[in-house]
Protein backbone atom coordinates (compact mmCIF):
# COMPACT_ATOMS: atom_id res chain seq x y z
CA UNK A 1 0.00 0.00 0.00
CA UNK A 2 1.34 3.42 -0.93
CA UNK A 3 2.05 6.08 1.70
CA UNK A 4 -0.22 8.42 -0.27
CA UNK A 5 -3.27 6.26 -0.06
CA UNK A 6 -5.71 9.07 0.11
CA UNK A 7 -8.63 10.61 -1.68
CA UNK A 8 -8.45 14.37 -1.85
CA UNK A 9 -10.99 16.85 -3.17
CA UNK A 10 -9.42 20.27 -3.23
CA UNK A 11 -11.98 23.03 -3.84
CA UNK A 12 -13.67 21.02 -6.57
CA UNK A 13 -16.12 23.08 -8.58
CA UNK A 14 -18.38 22.10 -11.44
CA UNK A 15 -20.36 24.51 -13.56
CA UNK A 16 -22.58 23.43 -16.45
CA UNK A 17 -24.20 25.98 -18.74
CA UNK A 18 -23.61 28.73 -16.19
CA UNK A 19 -25.20 26.74 -13.36
CA UNK A 20 -22.99 25.78 -10.44
CA UNK A 21 -23.56 22.17 -9.45
CA UNK A 22 -20.68 21.87 -7.00
CA UNK A 23 -18.66 24.67 -5.48
CA UNK A 24 -15.37 24.52 -3.58
CA UNK A 25 -15.88 21.02 -2.24
CA UNK A 26 -12.89 19.95 -0.18
CA UNK A 27 -12.21 16.89 1.93
CA UNK A 28 -9.55 14.28 2.45
CA UNK A 29 -9.91 10.58 3.13
CA UNK A 30 -6.85 9.20 4.84
CA UNK A 31 -5.40 5.74 4.50
CA UNK A 32 -7.41 3.23 6.50
CA UNK A 33 -10.34 5.58 6.82
CA UNK A 34 -13.92 5.16 5.62
CA UNK A 35 -15.62 8.45 4.86
CA UNK A 36 -19.37 8.75 4.51
CA UNK A 37 -20.50 11.20 1.85
CA UNK A 38 -23.98 12.40 2.63
CA UNK A 39 -26.41 14.83 1.12
CA UNK A 40 -29.93 15.10 -0.21
CA UNK A 41 -30.76 14.19 -3.79
CA UNK A 42 -29.20 16.70 -6.16
CA UNK A 43 -26.68 17.93 -3.58
CA UNK A 44 -23.78 17.16 -5.93
CA UNK A 45 -22.45 13.90 -4.47
CA UNK A 46 -22.35 12.00 -7.75
CA UNK A 47 -20.97 15.03 -9.59
CA UNK A 48 -18.15 15.23 -7.05
CA UNK A 49 -17.49 11.50 -7.30
CA UNK A 50 -17.36 11.71 -11.10
CA UNK A 51 -14.74 14.45 -10.85
CA UNK A 52 -12.73 12.35 -8.41
CA UNK A 53 -12.75 9.48 -10.92
CA UNK A 54 -11.87 11.57 -13.96
CA UNK A 55 -15.27 10.99 -15.54
CA UNK A 56 -16.07 14.68 -15.38
CA UNK A 57 -13.72 17.62 -15.78
CA UNK A 58 -13.77 20.01 -12.85
CA UNK A 59 -14.46 23.65 -13.69
CA UNK A 60 -12.14 24.45 -10.82
CA UNK A 61 -10.12 22.77 -8.12
CA UNK A 62 -8.27 19.49 -8.07
CA UNK A 63 -9.03 15.82 -7.55
CA UNK A 64 -6.10 13.87 -6.15
CA UNK A 65 -5.90 10.11 -5.69
CA UNK A 66 -2.95 8.46 -3.97
CA UNK A 67 -0.99 11.67 -4.24
CA UNK A 68 -1.51 11.99 -8.00
CA UNK A 69 -3.67 14.42 -9.84
CA UNK A 70 -6.72 13.07 -11.67
CA UNK A 71 -6.86 12.09 -14.47
CA UNK A 72 -3.65 10.16 -14.15
CA UNK A 73 -2.05 6.81 -13.40
CA UNK A 74 -3.66 6.63 -9.94
CA UNK A 75 -6.98 5.79 -11.59
CA UNK A 76 -5.62 2.33 -12.39
CA UNK A 77 -5.21 1.77 -8.64
CA UNK A 78 -8.62 3.08 -7.69
CA UNK A 79 -11.73 0.96 -7.43
CA UNK A 80 -15.07 2.58 -8.10
CA UNK A 81 -18.77 2.02 -8.31
CA UNK A 82 -20.85 4.83 -9.76
CA UNK A 83 -24.56 4.76 -10.55
CA UNK A 84 -25.97 1.42 -11.62
CA UNK A 85 -23.54 -1.50 -12.01
CA UNK A 86 -21.79 -1.42 -15.39
CA UNK A 87 -21.69 -5.06 -16.48
CA UNK A 88 -21.74 -7.17 -19.62
CA UNK A 89 -25.09 -8.92 -19.22
CA UNK A 90 -24.19 -11.49 -21.89
CA UNK A 91 -21.17 -12.71 -19.91
CA UNK A 92 -20.76 -14.60 -16.63
CA UNK A 93 -19.35 -13.09 -13.45
CA UNK A 94 -15.94 -14.53 -14.34
CA UNK A 95 -16.29 -13.19 -17.87
CA UNK A 96 -17.01 -9.74 -16.50
CA UNK A 97 -13.98 -9.92 -14.22
CA UNK A 98 -11.79 -10.95 -17.16
CA UNK A 99 -13.13 -8.11 -19.25
CA UNK A 100 -13.43 -5.30 -16.70
CA UNK A 101 -10.61 -6.21 -14.30
CA UNK A 102 -8.17 -7.80 -16.76
CA UNK A 103 -5.11 -7.51 -14.53
CA UNK A 104 -6.77 -9.61 -11.84
CA UNK A 105 -5.48 -13.18 -12.01
CA UNK A 106 -8.07 -15.65 -13.25
CA UNK A 107 -7.06 -18.15 -10.60
CA UNK A 108 -8.19 -15.64 -7.96
CA UNK A 109 -11.70 -15.28 -9.38
CA UNK A 110 -13.32 -17.95 -7.17
CA UNK A 111 -11.90 -16.41 -4.00
CA UNK A 112 -13.04 -12.93 -4.97
CA UNK A 113 -16.50 -14.12 -5.98
CA UNK A 114 -16.69 -16.00 -2.69
CA UNK A 115 -15.82 -12.79 -0.87
CA UNK A 116 -18.86 -11.05 -2.36
CA UNK A 117 -21.12 -14.09 -2.07
CA UNK A 118 -21.28 -15.03 -5.75
CA UNK A 119 -19.12 -18.12 -5.86
CA UNK A 120 -22.00 -20.48 -6.62
CA UNK A 121 -23.27 -18.40 -9.52
CA UNK A 122 -19.94 -17.31 -10.94
CA UNK A 123 -20.44 -19.15 -14.20
CA UNK A 124 -24.05 -18.07 -14.74
CA UNK A 125 -24.92 -15.32 -17.18
CA UNK A 126 -25.27 -11.97 -15.47
CA UNK A 127 -28.57 -11.55 -17.32
CA UNK A 128 -30.09 -13.94 -14.79
CA UNK A 129 -28.76 -11.98 -11.78
CA UNK A 130 -30.95 -9.98 -9.42
CA UNK A 131 -30.16 -6.31 -8.82
CA UNK A 132 -28.41 -7.20 -5.59
CA UNK A 133 -26.26 -9.83 -7.27
CA UNK A 134 -25.26 -7.34 -9.95
CA UNK A 135 -24.32 -4.88 -7.22
CA UNK A 136 -22.18 -7.55 -5.54
CA UNK A 137 -20.42 -8.27 -8.83
CA UNK A 138 -19.83 -4.57 -9.43
CA UNK A 139 -18.25 -4.43 -5.97
CA UNK A 140 -16.07 -7.40 -6.83
CA UNK A 141 -14.87 -5.61 -9.97
CA UNK A 142 -14.21 -2.47 -7.93
CA UNK A 143 -12.05 -4.26 -5.37
CA UNK A 144 -10.27 -6.57 -7.83
CA UNK A 145 -6.69 -5.56 -8.60
CA UNK A 146 -6.23 -4.51 -4.93
CA UNK A 147 -6.95 -0.79 -5.29
CA UNK A 148 -5.30 1.79 -3.02
CA UNK A 149 -8.52 3.77 -2.84
CA UNK A 150 -12.20 3.02 -3.27
CA UNK A 151 -14.88 5.47 -4.35
CA UNK A 152 -18.35 3.98 -4.00
CA UNK A 153 -21.57 5.75 -4.92
CA UNK A 154 -24.63 4.20 -3.25
CA UNK A 155 -22.91 0.80 -3.04
CA UNK A 156 -25.57 -0.85 -0.85
CA UNK A 157 -28.37 -0.16 -3.34
CA UNK A 158 -30.31 -3.33 -4.04
CA UNK A 159 -28.50 -5.41 -1.44
CA UNK A 160 -30.54 -7.53 0.94
CA UNK A 161 -29.86 -7.32 4.71
CA UNK A 162 -27.29 -10.12 4.54
CA UNK A 163 -25.69 -8.39 1.57
CA UNK A 164 -25.52 -5.10 3.47
CA UNK A 165 -23.87 -6.84 6.40
CA UNK A 166 -21.39 -8.62 4.10
CA UNK A 167 -20.66 -5.35 2.34
CA UNK A 168 -20.00 -3.61 5.66
CA UNK A 169 -17.59 -6.31 6.74
CA UNK A 170 -15.90 -6.22 3.36
CA UNK A 171 -15.39 -2.45 3.45
CA UNK A 172 -14.17 -2.48 7.05
CA UNK A 173 -11.73 -5.22 6.11
CA UNK A 174 -10.43 -3.25 3.16
CA UNK A 175 -10.02 -0.15 5.34
CA UNK A 176 -8.14 -2.22 7.89
CA UNK A 177 -5.72 -3.13 5.12
CA UNK A 178 -4.96 0.58 4.73
CA UNK A 179 -7.21 1.63 1.88
CA UNK A 180 -8.92 4.99 1.76
CA UNK A 181 -12.62 4.57 1.13
CA UNK A 182 -15.28 7.11 0.21
CA UNK A 183 -18.88 5.90 0.43
CA UNK A 184 -21.84 7.94 -0.69
CA UNK A 185 -25.12 6.78 0.80
CA UNK A 186 -28.58 7.80 1.91
CA UNK A 187 -28.74 5.04 4.51
CA UNK A 188 -27.75 6.93 7.64
CA UNK A 189 -27.87 3.93 9.94
CA UNK A 190 -25.50 2.11 7.65
CA UNK A 191 -23.18 5.10 7.43
CA UNK A 192 -23.08 5.24 11.22
CA UNK A 193 -22.02 1.61 11.39
CA UNK A 194 -19.55 1.79 8.54
CA UNK A 195 -17.84 5.16 8.53
CA UNK A 196 -15.24 6.92 10.61
CA UNK A 197 -15.83 10.38 9.20
CA UNK A 198 -18.80 12.03 7.54
CA UNK A 199 -18.94 14.88 5.05
CA UNK A 200 -22.33 16.44 4.41
CA UNK A 201 -22.97 18.15 1.10
CA UNK A 202 -25.92 20.41 0.47
CA UNK A 203 -26.68 22.46 -2.64
CA UNK A 204 -23.23 21.75 -4.02
CA UNK A 205 -21.33 22.86 -0.92
CA UNK A 206 -19.80 21.08 2.04
CA UNK A 207 -21.90 22.12 5.04
CA UNK A 208 -20.21 19.97 7.65
CA UNK A 209 -17.51 17.42 8.26
CA UNK A 210 -17.27 15.52 11.50
CA UNK A 211 -15.87 12.40 13.04
CA UNK A 212 -18.31 9.83 14.32
CA UNK A 213 -17.82 8.87 17.91
CA UNK A 214 -16.90 5.22 18.39
CA UNK A 215 -20.39 4.50 19.69
CA UNK A 216 -21.98 6.18 16.70
CA UNK A 217 -19.47 4.77 14.30
CA UNK A 218 -20.12 1.19 15.23
CA UNK A 219 -23.84 1.55 15.62
CA UNK A 220 -23.79 0.83 19.32
CA UNK A 221 -26.81 3.02 19.77
CA UNK A 222 -28.04 6.56 19.38
CA UNK A 223 -28.67 6.00 15.69
CA UNK A 224 -30.69 9.21 15.70
CA UNK A 225 -27.60 11.35 16.44
CA UNK A 226 -26.40 11.35 12.86
CA UNK A 227 -29.92 11.53 11.55
CA UNK A 228 -30.73 14.59 13.64
CA UNK A 229 -27.50 16.28 12.69
CA UNK A 230 -27.97 15.50 9.01
CA UNK A 231 -31.56 16.70 8.92
CA UNK A 232 -30.63 19.89 10.71
CA UNK A 233 -27.85 20.57 8.24
CA UNK A 234 -30.08 19.89 5.25
CA UNK A 235 -33.21 21.35 6.76
CA UNK A 236 -34.35 22.90 3.48
CA UNK A 237 -34.92 19.46 2.01
CA UNK A 238 -37.60 18.73 4.58
CA UNK A 239 -39.31 22.06 4.34
CA UNK A 240 -39.10 22.41 0.62
Amino acid at each position, binding site marked *: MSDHTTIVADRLTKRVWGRTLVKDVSFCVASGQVMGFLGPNGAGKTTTI*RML*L*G*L*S*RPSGGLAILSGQRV*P*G*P*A*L*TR*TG*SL*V*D*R*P*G*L*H*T*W*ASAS*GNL*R*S*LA*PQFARSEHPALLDRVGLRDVGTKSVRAYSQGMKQRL*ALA*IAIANGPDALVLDEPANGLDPAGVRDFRELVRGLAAEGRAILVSSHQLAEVERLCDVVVVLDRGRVVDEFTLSPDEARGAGASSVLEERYLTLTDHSRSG
Partner: protein
Amino acid sequence: MRAELRNLRAPGVLLTVLAGIALLFALIGLGQHHDATQWEIYTDGSSQLRSPEVRATYCANLAPAECDAAIAQEIRWNDDFGRELVRDHAYGAATQRPIGALGVVMGWLSSLLGVVLAAALAAVLIGGEWASGTARVRLARTPRRLDFVAVKFASVLIALVALAGVLWLSLAAAGPVLRQLYDVPPTAEGWSAGHYAEVQAGRGLVVLTAYAGLATGVALLVRSSLASFAVTCMVGLAAIGSSAAKGAPPSRSSNAGMPGALIATRFPARIDKVPAAKGALDYSPGFWVASWMRYATNGAWRDHVWPDTFPMGNAGDPVPLDPALGLLGLLGALLVGALITVAVFARRDVRS
Protein backbone atom coordinates in the same frame (compact mmCIF):
# COMPACT_ATOMS: atom_id res chain seq x y z
CA MET B 1 -6.37 -5.10 -25.54
CA ARG B 2 -6.97 -8.76 -24.72
CA ALA B 3 -9.78 -7.76 -22.40
CA GLU B 4 -11.21 -5.60 -25.16
CA LEU B 5 -11.14 -8.48 -27.60
CA ARG B 6 -13.32 -10.49 -25.21
CA ASN B 7 -16.11 -8.16 -26.28
CA LEU B 8 -16.04 -9.89 -29.66
CA ARG B 9 -18.05 -12.60 -27.91
CA ALA B 10 -20.97 -10.20 -27.54
CA PRO B 11 -24.10 -11.59 -29.22
CA GLY B 12 -24.33 -8.48 -31.39
CA VAL B 13 -21.03 -9.35 -33.06
CA LEU B 14 -22.36 -12.75 -34.11
CA LEU B 15 -25.53 -11.11 -35.42
CA THR B 16 -23.43 -8.67 -37.44
CA VAL B 17 -21.42 -11.54 -38.92
CA LEU B 18 -24.59 -13.40 -39.88
CA ALA B 19 -26.13 -10.24 -41.34
CA GLY B 20 -22.90 -9.61 -43.28
CA ILE B 21 -22.96 -13.12 -44.73
CA ALA B 22 -26.64 -12.77 -45.68
CA LEU B 23 -26.11 -9.39 -47.33
CA LEU B 24 -23.01 -10.54 -49.17
CA PHE B 25 -24.67 -13.62 -50.56
CA ALA B 26 -27.77 -11.67 -51.61
CA LEU B 27 -25.60 -9.24 -53.55
CA ILE B 28 -23.36 -11.96 -54.95
CA GLY B 29 -26.44 -13.89 -56.06
CA LEU B 30 -27.78 -10.88 -57.92
CA GLY B 31 -24.43 -10.19 -59.54
CA GLN B 32 -23.88 -13.80 -60.54
CA HIS B 33 -27.41 -14.02 -61.96
CA HIS B 34 -26.79 -10.91 -64.05
CA ASP B 35 -23.43 -12.17 -65.31
CA ALA B 36 -24.87 -15.58 -66.17
CA THR B 37 -27.77 -13.97 -68.03
CA GLN B 38 -25.41 -11.80 -70.08
CA TRP B 39 -23.20 -14.76 -70.88
CA GLU B 40 -26.22 -16.80 -71.89
CA ILE B 41 -27.28 -14.04 -74.32
CA TYR B 42 -23.83 -14.18 -75.88
CA THR B 43 -23.59 -17.97 -76.12
CA ASP B 44 -27.16 -18.31 -77.40
CA GLY B 45 -26.47 -15.66 -80.05
CA SER B 46 -23.24 -17.34 -81.01
CA SER B 47 -24.87 -20.72 -81.63
CA GLN B 48 -28.06 -19.38 -83.20
CA LEU B 49 -26.25 -17.16 -85.69
CA ARG B 50 -24.52 -20.26 -87.01
CA SER B 51 -27.60 -22.48 -87.19
CA PRO B 52 -29.22 -23.18 -90.62
CA GLU B 53 -32.72 -22.48 -89.25
CA VAL B 54 -31.85 -18.98 -88.07
CA ARG B 55 -29.95 -18.36 -91.31
CA ALA B 56 -32.99 -19.38 -93.32
CA THR B 57 -35.28 -17.07 -91.33
CA TYR B 58 -32.80 -14.19 -91.21
CA CYS B 59 -31.97 -14.31 -94.91
CA ALA B 60 -35.45 -14.98 -96.27
CA ASN B 61 -35.46 -11.77 -98.33
CA LEU B 62 -31.73 -11.39 -98.93
CA ALA B 63 -29.44 -12.45 -101.70
CA PRO B 64 -26.85 -15.08 -100.60
CA ALA B 65 -23.95 -12.59 -100.66
CA GLU B 66 -25.93 -10.03 -98.65
CA CYS B 67 -26.97 -12.76 -96.25
CA ASP B 68 -23.36 -13.87 -95.67
CA ALA B 69 -22.28 -10.28 -95.03
CA ALA B 70 -25.18 -9.57 -92.65
CA ILE B 71 -24.62 -12.79 -90.70
CA ALA B 72 -20.88 -12.12 -90.51
CA GLN B 73 -21.60 -8.63 -89.18
CA GLU B 74 -23.96 -10.02 -86.51
CA ILE B 75 -21.36 -12.60 -85.49
CA ARG B 76 -18.70 -9.89 -85.20
CA TRP B 77 -20.99 -7.79 -82.97
CA ASN B 78 -21.80 -10.80 -80.86
CA ASP B 79 -18.12 -11.70 -80.53
CA ASP B 80 -17.34 -8.12 -79.51
CA PHE B 81 -20.03 -8.41 -76.87
CA GLY B 82 -18.51 -11.68 -75.67
CA ARG B 83 -15.03 -10.18 -75.45
CA GLU B 84 -16.43 -7.24 -73.51
CA LEU B 85 -18.11 -9.60 -71.09
CA VAL B 86 -14.88 -11.53 -70.57
CA ARG B 87 -12.98 -8.30 -70.01
CA ASP B 88 -15.42 -6.52 -67.71
CA HIS B 89 -16.94 -9.42 -65.80
CA ALA B 90 -13.75 -10.88 -64.42
CA TYR B 91 -15.07 -10.50 -60.91
CA GLY B 92 -17.97 -12.82 -61.76
CA ALA B 93 -15.63 -15.72 -62.39
CA ALA B 94 -13.34 -14.64 -59.56
CA THR B 95 -16.27 -14.97 -57.19
CA GLN B 96 -16.34 -18.70 -57.87
CA ARG B 97 -12.66 -19.25 -57.10
CA PRO B 98 -11.29 -19.44 -53.55
CA ILE B 99 -8.54 -16.87 -54.06
CA GLY B 100 -10.57 -14.60 -56.31
CA ALA B 101 -13.32 -14.60 -53.68
CA LEU B 102 -11.00 -12.67 -51.37
CA GLY B 103 -10.71 -9.88 -53.94
CA VAL B 104 -14.46 -9.80 -54.42
CA VAL B 105 -15.14 -9.68 -50.67
CA MET B 106 -12.65 -6.85 -50.17
CA GLY B 107 -14.27 -5.00 -53.06
CA TRP B 108 -17.68 -5.32 -51.47
CA LEU B 109 -16.38 -4.31 -48.06
CA SER B 110 -14.81 -1.21 -49.57
CA SER B 111 -18.29 -0.13 -50.59
CA LEU B 112 -21.38 0.90 -48.67
CA LEU B 113 -21.60 -2.67 -47.36
CA GLY B 114 -18.32 -2.12 -45.51
CA VAL B 115 -19.60 1.13 -44.00
CA VAL B 116 -22.78 -0.59 -42.79
CA LEU B 117 -20.90 -3.50 -41.24
CA ALA B 118 -18.34 -1.20 -39.60
CA ALA B 119 -21.23 0.84 -38.21
CA ALA B 120 -22.87 -2.30 -36.83
CA LEU B 121 -19.65 -3.52 -35.19
CA ALA B 122 -18.97 -0.13 -33.63
CA ALA B 123 -22.57 0.02 -32.41
CA VAL B 124 -22.05 -3.31 -30.63
CA LEU B 125 -18.49 -2.82 -29.39
CA ILE B 126 -18.75 0.85 -28.40
CA GLY B 127 -22.43 1.80 -28.34
CA GLY B 128 -23.16 -1.35 -26.34
CA GLU B 129 -20.59 -0.29 -23.74
CA TRP B 130 -22.35 3.03 -23.24
CA ALA B 131 -25.68 1.26 -22.87
CA SER B 132 -24.40 -1.28 -20.34
CA GLY B 133 -22.39 1.26 -18.36
CA THR B 134 -19.16 -0.69 -18.85
CA ALA B 135 -17.66 2.25 -20.73
CA ARG B 136 -17.95 4.24 -17.51
CA VAL B 137 -16.29 1.43 -15.55
CA ARG B 138 -13.40 1.30 -18.01
CA LEU B 139 -12.98 5.06 -18.23
CA ALA B 140 -12.88 5.35 -14.44
CA ARG B 141 -9.77 3.16 -14.61
CA THR B 142 -8.22 4.68 -17.71
CA PRO B 143 -5.68 7.43 -17.05
CA ARG B 144 -5.86 8.81 -20.59
CA ARG B 145 -8.95 8.93 -22.79
CA LEU B 146 -6.68 8.59 -25.82
CA ASP B 147 -5.91 5.02 -24.70
CA PHE B 148 -9.62 4.22 -24.69
CA VAL B 149 -10.08 5.69 -28.18
CA ALA B 150 -7.09 3.74 -29.51
CA VAL B 151 -8.25 0.45 -28.02
CA LYS B 152 -11.78 0.90 -29.35
CA PHE B 153 -10.53 1.77 -32.82
CA ALA B 154 -8.27 -1.27 -32.80
CA SER B 155 -11.08 -3.56 -31.69
CA VAL B 156 -13.47 -2.32 -34.40
CA LEU B 157 -10.76 -2.65 -37.04
CA ILE B 158 -9.79 -6.14 -35.89
CA ALA B 159 -13.45 -7.18 -35.88
CA LEU B 160 -13.94 -5.77 -39.37
CA VAL B 161 -10.87 -7.55 -40.75
CA ALA B 162 -11.95 -10.77 -39.03
CA LEU B 163 -15.39 -10.33 -40.56
CA ALA B 164 -13.75 -9.95 -43.98
CA GLY B 165 -12.00 -13.25 -43.31
CA VAL B 166 -15.25 -14.96 -42.38
CA LEU B 167 -16.97 -13.59 -45.49
CA TRP B 168 -14.07 -14.74 -47.65
CA LEU B 169 -14.16 -18.25 -46.23
CA SER B 170 -17.93 -18.38 -46.64
CA LEU B 171 -17.73 -17.28 -50.27
CA ALA B 172 -14.82 -19.59 -50.99
CA ALA B 173 -16.77 -22.50 -49.53
CA ALA B 174 -19.78 -21.57 -51.66
CA GLY B 175 -17.68 -21.48 -54.85
CA PRO B 176 -18.59 -25.01 -56.07
CA VAL B 177 -22.29 -24.28 -55.54
CA LEU B 178 -22.05 -20.99 -57.43
CA ARG B 179 -20.27 -22.75 -60.29
CA GLN B 180 -23.15 -25.22 -60.49
CA LEU B 181 -25.78 -22.51 -60.37
CA TYR B 182 -24.29 -19.82 -62.59
CA ASP B 183 -22.42 -20.15 -65.87
CA VAL B 184 -20.61 -16.81 -65.87
CA PRO B 185 -18.14 -15.43 -68.45
CA PRO B 186 -14.64 -16.90 -68.17
CA THR B 187 -11.79 -14.61 -67.24
CA ALA B 188 -9.52 -13.16 -69.88
CA GLU B 189 -6.30 -14.91 -70.78
CA GLY B 190 -3.46 -13.91 -68.50
CA TRP B 191 -5.82 -12.67 -65.82
CA SER B 192 -4.66 -13.76 -62.39
CA ALA B 193 -7.09 -14.31 -59.53
CA GLY B 194 -4.15 -14.24 -57.11
CA HIS B 195 -2.97 -10.86 -58.28
CA TYR B 196 -6.52 -9.54 -58.27
CA ALA B 197 -7.04 -10.73 -54.67
CA GLU B 198 -3.67 -9.36 -53.56
CA VAL B 199 -4.35 -5.92 -55.01
CA GLN B 200 -7.94 -5.74 -53.77
CA ALA B 201 -6.99 -6.93 -50.27
CA GLY B 202 -4.13 -4.46 -50.00
CA ARG B 203 -6.20 -1.51 -51.12
CA GLY B 204 -9.29 -2.69 -49.27
CA LEU B 205 -7.47 -2.81 -45.94
CA VAL B 206 -6.78 0.91 -46.20
CA VAL B 207 -10.45 1.57 -46.90
CA LEU B 208 -11.55 -0.69 -44.03
CA THR B 209 -9.23 1.25 -41.72
CA ALA B 210 -10.95 4.46 -42.78
CA TYR B 211 -14.40 2.93 -42.27
CA ALA B 212 -13.39 1.60 -38.84
CA GLY B 213 -12.13 5.08 -37.95
CA LEU B 214 -15.37 6.69 -39.06
CA ALA B 215 -17.54 4.18 -37.17
CA THR B 216 -15.39 4.40 -34.01
CA GLY B 217 -15.40 8.18 -33.96
CA VAL B 218 -19.16 8.39 -34.41
CA ALA B 219 -19.87 5.70 -31.79
CA LEU B 220 -17.58 7.38 -29.25
CA LEU B 221 -19.20 10.76 -29.73
CA VAL B 222 -22.83 9.73 -30.22
CA ARG B 223 -22.83 7.20 -27.34
CA SER B 224 -25.82 5.18 -28.46
CA SER B 225 -25.88 1.94 -30.43
CA LEU B 226 -28.80 2.79 -32.67
CA ALA B 227 -27.89 6.43 -33.19
CA SER B 228 -24.24 5.69 -33.94
CA PHE B 229 -25.25 3.03 -36.45
CA ALA B 230 -27.65 5.42 -38.17
CA VAL B 231 -25.22 8.36 -38.18
CA THR B 232 -22.33 6.28 -39.54
CA CYS B 233 -24.50 4.88 -42.32
CA MET B 234 -25.77 8.35 -43.16
CA VAL B 235 -22.25 9.78 -43.29
CA GLY B 236 -21.16 6.89 -45.52
CA LEU B 237 -24.16 7.27 -47.76
CA ALA B 238 -23.65 11.02 -47.97
CA ALA B 239 -19.98 10.58 -48.90
CA ILE B 240 -20.81 8.04 -51.56
CA GLY B 241 -23.87 9.95 -52.69
CA SER B 242 -21.86 13.11 -53.11
CA SER B 243 -19.74 11.27 -55.65
CA ALA B 244 -22.77 9.82 -57.37
CA ALA B 245 -24.35 13.27 -57.39
CA LYS B 246 -21.80 14.33 -59.93
CA GLY B 247 -24.32 12.95 -62.35
CA ALA B 248 -24.34 10.30 -65.00
CA PRO B 249 -23.50 11.36 -68.54
CA PRO B 250 -26.43 11.79 -70.91
CA SER B 251 -25.41 8.70 -72.85
CA ARG B 252 -26.02 6.39 -69.92
CA SER B 253 -28.66 3.79 -70.28
CA SER B 254 -31.67 3.49 -68.01
CA ASN B 255 -30.08 1.19 -65.43
CA ALA B 256 -27.47 3.80 -64.56
CA GLY B 257 -29.42 5.10 -61.62
CA MET B 258 -30.39 1.78 -60.12
CA PRO B 259 -29.56 1.07 -56.49
CA GLY B 260 -26.59 -1.04 -57.47
CA ALA B 261 -24.89 2.14 -58.54
CA LEU B 262 -24.37 2.88 -54.86
CA ILE B 263 -22.45 -0.28 -54.28
CA ALA B 264 -18.94 -0.83 -55.44
CA THR B 265 -17.73 -4.30 -56.17
CA ARG B 266 -16.06 -3.96 -59.47
CA PHE B 267 -12.99 -5.51 -60.79
CA PRO B 268 -10.58 -2.60 -60.61
CA ALA B 269 -10.44 -0.67 -63.83
CA ARG B 270 -7.16 0.18 -65.41
CA ILE B 271 -5.75 3.45 -64.25
CA ASP B 272 -6.50 5.10 -67.57
CA LYS B 273 -10.17 4.28 -67.03
CA VAL B 274 -10.51 6.24 -63.85
CA PRO B 275 -11.58 9.65 -64.99
CA ALA B 276 -12.94 12.19 -62.60
CA ALA B 277 -14.79 15.38 -63.14
CA LYS B 278 -13.43 18.66 -61.95
CA GLY B 279 -15.10 20.34 -59.06
CA ALA B 280 -15.50 20.11 -55.36
CA LEU B 281 -17.20 16.74 -55.48
CA ASP B 282 -13.93 15.25 -56.69
CA TYR B 283 -12.75 15.62 -53.16
CA SER B 284 -15.52 13.77 -51.38
CA PRO B 285 -14.49 10.73 -49.34
CA GLY B 286 -16.57 8.52 -51.61
CA PHE B 287 -14.56 9.67 -54.58
CA TRP B 288 -11.31 9.08 -52.73
CA VAL B 289 -12.37 5.51 -52.03
CA ALA B 290 -13.30 5.03 -55.68
CA SER B 291 -10.00 6.45 -56.88
CA TRP B 292 -7.92 4.46 -54.44
CA MET B 293 -9.78 1.24 -55.22
CA ARG B 294 -9.62 2.03 -58.97
CA TYR B 295 -13.37 1.68 -59.28
CA ALA B 296 -14.67 3.10 -62.50
CA THR B 297 -15.73 6.63 -61.87
CA ASN B 298 -16.97 7.12 -65.38
CA GLY B 299 -20.25 5.28 -65.69
CA ALA B 300 -20.33 5.49 -69.49
CA TRP B 301 -18.55 2.19 -70.01
CA ARG B 302 -20.27 0.35 -67.18
CA ASP B 303 -23.86 0.54 -68.28
CA HIS B 304 -24.31 -3.18 -68.66
CA VAL B 305 -22.84 -4.14 -65.32
CA TRP B 306 -24.77 -4.84 -62.17
CA PRO B 307 -23.87 -4.19 -59.44
CA ASP B 308 -22.33 -1.08 -60.79
CA THR B 309 -19.73 1.15 -59.24
CA PHE B 310 -20.99 3.64 -56.71
CA PRO B 311 -19.44 6.90 -57.77
CA MET B 312 -20.66 7.75 -61.24
CA GLY B 313 -18.49 10.48 -62.58
CA ASN B 314 -19.29 13.00 -65.23
CA ALA B 315 -17.92 11.76 -68.51
CA GLY B 316 -18.13 15.23 -70.00
CA ASP B 317 -14.86 16.46 -68.63
CA PRO B 318 -12.84 13.48 -67.52
CA VAL B 319 -9.69 14.16 -65.56
CA PRO B 320 -7.79 11.16 -64.25
CA LEU B 321 -7.47 11.26 -60.47
CA ASP B 322 -4.31 9.66 -59.26
CA PRO B 323 -5.08 6.80 -56.86
CA ALA B 324 -2.34 8.19 -54.64
CA LEU B 325 -4.44 11.33 -54.23
CA GLY B 326 -7.38 9.15 -53.27
CA LEU B 327 -5.18 7.45 -50.67
CA LEU B 328 -3.96 10.81 -49.44
CA GLY B 329 -7.53 12.04 -49.11
CA LEU B 330 -8.57 8.94 -47.17
CA LEU B 331 -5.63 9.09 -44.79
CA GLY B 332 -6.11 12.82 -44.32
CA ALA B 333 -9.79 12.33 -43.52
CA LEU B 334 -8.87 9.57 -41.07
CA LEU B 335 -6.31 11.78 -39.34
CA VAL B 336 -8.61 14.79 -39.11
CA GLY B 337 -11.45 12.58 -37.86
CA ALA B 338 -9.16 11.04 -35.23
CA LEU B 339 -8.00 14.45 -34.01
CA ILE B 340 -11.56 15.73 -33.73
CA THR B 341 -12.70 12.57 -31.94
CA VAL B 342 -9.85 12.64 -29.44
CA ALA B 343 -10.17 16.38 -28.82
CA VAL B 344 -13.94 16.23 -28.23
CA PHE B 345 -14.00 12.89 -26.42
CA ALA B 346 -11.16 13.84 -24.07
CA ARG B 347 -13.05 16.87 -22.81
CA ARG B 348 -16.56 15.50 -22.58
CA ASP B 349 -18.03 14.34 -19.30
CA VAL B 350 -19.09 10.72 -18.98
CA ARG B 351 -22.66 10.60 -17.77
CA SER B 352 -23.97 7.21 -18.83
